[in-house]
């Protein structure tokens, strides 16, 4: 059982990050796109904490709390836009929202 080093955590974070990017690029449903962004932010958090463990200080962990705060704000506003939009246009498929003003 090879000991767990930071490298392992980086690979996992990279995998999550790539999954998030695939989600954002390919999915049509806005909620799934927002969830993929959450996935990306989680990958970033994992990286921060892994490095904080590696360097032995807590800056990484404190900064990951700031990233969580940002994720919360982003989710709230993103979903607010989604609700406002859904009420007018009855659809939330990303590729159908193509008008700037209707």
């Amino acid at each position, binding site marked *: 059982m090879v000991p*767990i080093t930071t490298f392992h955590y980086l690979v996992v974070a990279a995998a999550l990050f*790539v999954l998030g990017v695939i989600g954002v690029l390919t999915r049509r449903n806005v909620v799934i796109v927002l*969830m993929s962004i959450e996935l990306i932010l989680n990958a970033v958090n994992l990286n921060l904490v892994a490095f904080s463990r590696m360097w032995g200080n807590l800056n990484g962990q404190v900064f990951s709390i700031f990233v969580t705060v940002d994720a919360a704000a982003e989710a709230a506003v993103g979903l607010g836009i989604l609700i406002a939009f859904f009420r007018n246009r009855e659809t939330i498929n990303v590729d159908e929202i193509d008008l700037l003003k209707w």
Partner: protein
Amino acid sequence: MNPAINAGMAPVATPGFFYVLAGLAVASGVAVITRRNAVHAALALIVTLLSVAGLYLMLYAPFVFAVQLFVYAGGIMLLFLFVIMLVNIERSSKERRFNRMWPVALAASCALMVLFLSAFVKGRTLFPDRLMPLPESSNTQQIAGMLYGEAGRMGQYTFAFEIASLLLLVAILGAVIMTKKKI
């Protein structure tokens, strides 16, 4: 366990746990982006969040674990589930899931993965190979010290912390104004 690696810190859990949690995180991550039904995707995301929280514990970050549990899994995911149910998008879920140009996107992401891996392999020599010990006293006190400052002097992140609360205030106002039917 090679003590040099963990530099005298009591190991949180047997290494096997890492592979379990990492596998769970990646598997449910795949489920998030492939499930047709939004609520299934949300549940998969919750599983991802919880497994990543487990990973934080293995990285000696209990406070971040608690924040992840409290804010992410308990708060943001609830917001997602609320919106999915209120806006009950189920009717429109019968159409195509992926937009037309998904092969291009997939290729680009795989290229990105290859790039990451190559960066890690080459960069292995840059990082110190052994892990330095984290300060022994309770992790929460440490973080609180950095956020709020100890013994009178300002902490390193106190100013940033105030701005973060401002950011949250703006987000709250924005979300409320946007969703009100008749302002």
